């Protein structure tokens, strides 16, 4: 950007004055002798000449831009959007504040905290995250068999919720009771069957069973014995006792051998 200096041409116009009158000259506000003096300065000054040319061509370029046609539905859309605003609410915020509605007061109170958060959430880069979250949630709902139409049909009145809840509770308890009754019936049937079997069973078979049990008992006892023995062999105390026993035997054997030699010598 060139800024004009303080050159003064023979007509008496300074560059600073030229700059301030440039818009007037181009917009046709300047006329007569003043305009002539202006043009003369533009032709003579090396700073202001190009400035004038550029400003003039810039203006011509801008004026060459034709008026664009607004979309056909613009007025309709504007009217549709503004019709959604309640006319009574049009000068809205001041009116709401004066009414002092609890919602407005709460919003006003929470604004310092909520506004930065909401502004942050409104960023376009988070829009995709939100879209993905919505997509996955809706996918999960679909997989779970929950339709949005079902939600729409849900009655959210408090009375409807309480009746719905009591209905669910009664249905569930009824189902549990029925299940319990069924199981009890099955067990009863099984125990009856066992009793019937017991009653119908022959006494010979029962004796055989008893004998088999008695036979099994000593087997069990004998099978325990070697286990305890083997355990004894591996215990340290028993090993020492055995060693001591061996030594005594050897000594006794030695004594008996010596006595035998002595007896032989004596004899």
């Amino acid at each position, binding site marked *: 950007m060139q800024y004009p200096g303080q050159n003064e041409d023979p007509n008496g116009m300074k560059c600073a004055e030229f700059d301030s009158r440039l818009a007037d000259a181009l917009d046709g506000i300047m006329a007569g002798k003043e305009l002539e003096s202006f043009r003369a300065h533009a032709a003579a000054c090396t700073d202001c000449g190009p400035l004038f040319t550029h400003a003039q*061509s810039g203006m011509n370029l801008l004026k060459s*831009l034709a008026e*664009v046609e607004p979309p056909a539905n613009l007025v309709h859309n504007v009217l549709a959007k503004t019709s959604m605003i309640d006319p009574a609410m049009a000068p809205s915020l001041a009116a709401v504040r004066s009414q002092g509605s609890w919602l407005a007061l709460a919003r006003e109170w929470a604004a310092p905290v909520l506004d930065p958060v909401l502004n942050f959430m409104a960023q376009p880069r988070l829009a995709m995250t939100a879209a993905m979250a919505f997509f996955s949630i809706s996918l999960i709902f679909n997989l779970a068999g929950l339709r949005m139409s079902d939600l729409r049909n849900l009655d959210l009145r408090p009375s409807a919720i309480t009746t719905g809840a009591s209905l669910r509770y009664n249905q569930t308890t009824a189902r549990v009771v029925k299940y319990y009754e069924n199981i009890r019936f099955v067990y009863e049937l099984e125990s009856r069957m066992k009793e019937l079997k017991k009653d119908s069973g022959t006494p010979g078979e029962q004796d055989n069973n008893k004998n088999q049990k008695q036979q099994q008992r000593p087997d069990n006892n004998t099978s325990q014995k070697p286990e305890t023995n083997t355990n004894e062999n591996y215990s340290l105390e028993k090993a020492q006792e055995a060693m001591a026993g061996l030594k005594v035997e050897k000594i006794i054997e030695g004594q008996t051998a010596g006595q035998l030699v002595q007896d032989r010598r004596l004899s």
Partner: protein
Amino acid sequence: MALTAEESQLTASLIKRCLGGDASAWEEIVRSHNRRIYNICYRFTGSQDDAEDLTQEVFIRIYRTLKSYDLERGAFATWVTTMTRNLLVDHFRKSKQDRMTDSIDATPPGEEDAPTLGDHIRDEKPTPDASVATKETQAMVQQALQKLSPELREAVILRDLQDMDYKDIAAALRVPEGTVKSRINRGRTELARLLSRTYRQVN
């Protein structure tokens, strides 16, 4: 932009009817201003979709705050322009990063087969006359307009496209008239330089 006393009286009665709940009065307001608001939004953003959304947003804002409009303080059109401008500045701040990624040699949106700015200027004079501007030239100028800072952009849009006078622009932008003139000068100069620089680069 300068309204006669009769026109301002008509606007005042329209607003009064609208505030009284007359839907047809509101429709009349929408019909008489939608074209202008849409054009300002489109030239500022360079996107038809954004312009449509922003126009709707401007009208919603006007509808909500219509009660606060004071006829004594200025023309209704200037008030509407201020609303539009404020919304555009908000939008500009929000979409700053998108704007930074724009390229002057990029193809205009929705015109994949159209020549780029460089292609176009190669065939054109650096300062084409207003009367011979083709559709392509307009697209290129629109792209260059997007490169201007929002202050310069809004000033030249209101002056050269909406034909508002300095006083009304100063009232709409809430800056002194001298600042408005300076911004208009700089905006026009910058735009011409942007286009001629690209033309030189291409050649």
